[in-house]
């Protein structure tokens, strides 16, 4: 092993004190407080502190809910597809993507609760035994939501947690004091035996395969919150795949932004290389075109059929009150990416990060454009309405971003944000005389156990110098 590689790997596992990390954690923590303050204010004073009304009875909360659930597809789906297809360049990407998934789900999952008129009664939606024999209504897409999102959250936590174990063990072995106790607890007794490696690899394989249909079904069900209804421009057969494509699109955008920030903030350029960015950018480009195709189809068919109620919503978006956000969305989600991503120079970290931020904004706009104009122009034209969000909704929107960042930053300091053992394994694949395919599970187990020992040893050696 090259000495530079060892030293480089040390940096991955070590949690160095970095002033900007503290500042970022405190800032996002302040936004998190704002989130809970606004929610508390809403609970105390009544749901009426929002800007919603009749007929616009859903607003920022539902859009942001769909947005965060969309972001959650970053991880698990992308990392799972790359794992299943055996893409070697996935190794530095998987962990930070899977962490996005878990925390985006934690944040997104709060929104269906906080949009309730009586959030403290949310347990009515759960199938809890009770003396009155009351049961949730499983004909309702919202009840499907609660099942799908819980299942996806549990699956994502497992999928993030399994490959985390060897890395937590590395940290445990070099730590002392309360940190050692913390990592001893979280590493679940990982010792790196061949048997453990076999079980771990089997578990990761199973979870990678299970999580793909789970992720697709989750966002399909989220789309059905809208598509199952009679509401103009919601009742659409393509909403399922349209939402899944949009989710993966915004997920990749979030992942690219996170990777760029990690690369520059933690100086991880040795692993998050230009080549990794470029490969992910090609996937990004494909999703740009898929999203553009779906958006075009959705609006073209509504325009051509020209059904009265749908046409009213359509023209609200194209030329009416919703036109400014609509065309901003088209520019950010389609025009800009199509001008940047096809070119080699555009597929570098900095332009990708900027395009990614634009796509995140555009995808949030897409969701609010789905929710509000349809509700504001109901079938009986007499009840037409409008929607202006209140400070509570805007605070919760900003606060949710803060909450997500806060959870992510705390996670970064509790565990390596790149998968140390998987990168080590990849380096051995490259360096060694390729033991791949030479033996069965046991030889693979021995090999990766060795990789893990290497990593542990390197880090342990570094820890004495670094601490």
């Amino acid at each position, binding site marked *: 092993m090259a000495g530079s590689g060892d030293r480089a790997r040390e940096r991955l596992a070590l949690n160095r004190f970095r002033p900007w990390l503290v500042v970022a954690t405190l800032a996002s923590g302040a936004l998190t407080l704002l989130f809970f303050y606004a929610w508390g204010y809403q609970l105390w004073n*009544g749901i009426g502190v929002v800007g919603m009304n009749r007929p616009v009875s859903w607003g920022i909360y539902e859009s942001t809910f769909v947005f965060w659930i969309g972001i959650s597809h970053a991880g698990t789906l992308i990392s799972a597809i790359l794992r299943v297809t055996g893409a070697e360049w996935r190794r530095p990407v998987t962990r930070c993507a899977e962490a996005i998934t878990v925390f985006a789900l934690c944040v997104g999952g709060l929104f269906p609760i906080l949009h309730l008129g009586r959030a403290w009664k949310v347990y009515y939606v759960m199938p809890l035994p009770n003396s009155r024999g009351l049961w949730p209504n499983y004909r309702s897409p919202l009840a499907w939501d*609660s099942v799908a999102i819980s299942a996806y959250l549990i699956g994502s936590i497992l999928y993030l947690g399994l490959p985390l174990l060897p890395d937590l063990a590395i940290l445990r072995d070099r730590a002392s004091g309360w940190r050692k106790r913390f990592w001893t607890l979280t590493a679940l007794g990982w010792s790196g035996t061949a048997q453990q490696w076999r079980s771990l690899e089997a578990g990761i394989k199973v979870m990678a395969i299970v999580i793909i249909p789970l992720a697709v079904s989750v966002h399909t069900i989220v789309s059905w919150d809208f598509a199952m209804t009679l509401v103009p421009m919601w009742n659409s057969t393509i909403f399922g795949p349209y939402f899944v494509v949009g989710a993966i699109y915004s997920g990749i955008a979030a992942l690219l932004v996170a990777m760029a920030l990690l690369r520059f903030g933690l100086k991880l350029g040795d692993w998050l290389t230009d080549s990794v960015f470029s490969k992910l950018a090609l996937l990004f480009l494909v999703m740009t075109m898929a999203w553009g195709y779906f958006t075009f189809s959705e609006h073209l068919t509504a325009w051509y059929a020209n059904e009265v109620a749908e046409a009213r919503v359509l023209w609200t978006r194209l030329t009416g009150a919703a036109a400014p956000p609509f065309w901003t969305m088209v520019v950010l989600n389609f025009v800009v990416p199509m001008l940047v991503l096809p070119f080699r120079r555009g597929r570098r970290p900095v332009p990708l990060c900027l395009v990614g931020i634009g796509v995140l904004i555009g995808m949030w706009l897409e969701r609010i454009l789905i929710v509000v104009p349809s*509700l504001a122009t109901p079938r009986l034209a007499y009840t037409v309405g409008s929607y202006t969000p209140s400070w509570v909704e805007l605070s919760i929107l900003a606060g949710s971003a803060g909450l997500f960042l806060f959870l992510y930053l705390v996670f970064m300091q509790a565990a390596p944000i790149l998968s140390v053992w998987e990168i080590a394994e990849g380096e051995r694949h490259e360096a060694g005389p390729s033991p791949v395919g030479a033996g069965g599970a046991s030889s693979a187990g021995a090999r990766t156990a060795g990789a893990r020992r290497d990593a542990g040893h390197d880090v342990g050696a570094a820890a004495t110098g670094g601490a």
Partner: protein
Amino acid sequence: MTRWGMVVDVDRCTGCDACVVACQEENNVQIVGESEAANGRAMHWLRIERYVEGEFPDARVTFRPVLCQHCGEAPCEPVCPVYATYHTPDGLNAMVYARCVGTRYCANNCPYTVRTFNWFDPEWPAPLDRQLNPDVSPRVSGVMEKCTFCVQRIQGAERAADAAGREVADGDIRPACAAACPAQVFTFGDLEDPESRVSRLAKSPRAHHLLGDLGTQPGVIYLEGADWGGNAGDGEAGDETEPATTEPSTTEPAAPATAAAGETSP
């Protein structure tokens, strides 16, 4: 079986809003105040939609009272995750306030936009609290509500008939809107009983359902399309959007029945 229904004769409506006020008082509907109403949060279970057809001086103003249609295939019912809105055996679309968690999904999926939401807790500053109807449970912040066809009056009539050892007779039940209407727009009764006044009125050539092509099978039938001799002459008939109003004027076979409906004693 019974299916409660209502006939609304739009041609008779003068837009006086007496039904709106009566409904609000009867059902303890929250009075939200001026600024909230301007925010689109007025909570009337019944609203009068006003439409102006044509240009002055050839304009014609029509009024359409819109309330919960008590759909046979109600879009609001399946989407509620907690069964807070459901269908009663006698055809009412009912709300269980205690069960409602306030997702407002039902309001989104109601094509008639008749569901109203309690954005805040209701307040009845004294002496308004003395006028509350003891037969109607008040609602709290975060709960959906809508027209019940004055279910408390239906139950009251059923109890009274029970005590007298007879069946509920046609005309026993008058919802607050029907009782208050000076123009006798509303007729309430059992749509399953072919002899009831609502059933006979529902056979009028002027009868139609609101947004009937959605297949919601409303329990409210609108009568619309009488020739008002002058305001909507043959010349303008082609410009009107409602198919019902473009029909040739009827000779009003329903009119005597409507008049009879008005003669029922309170």
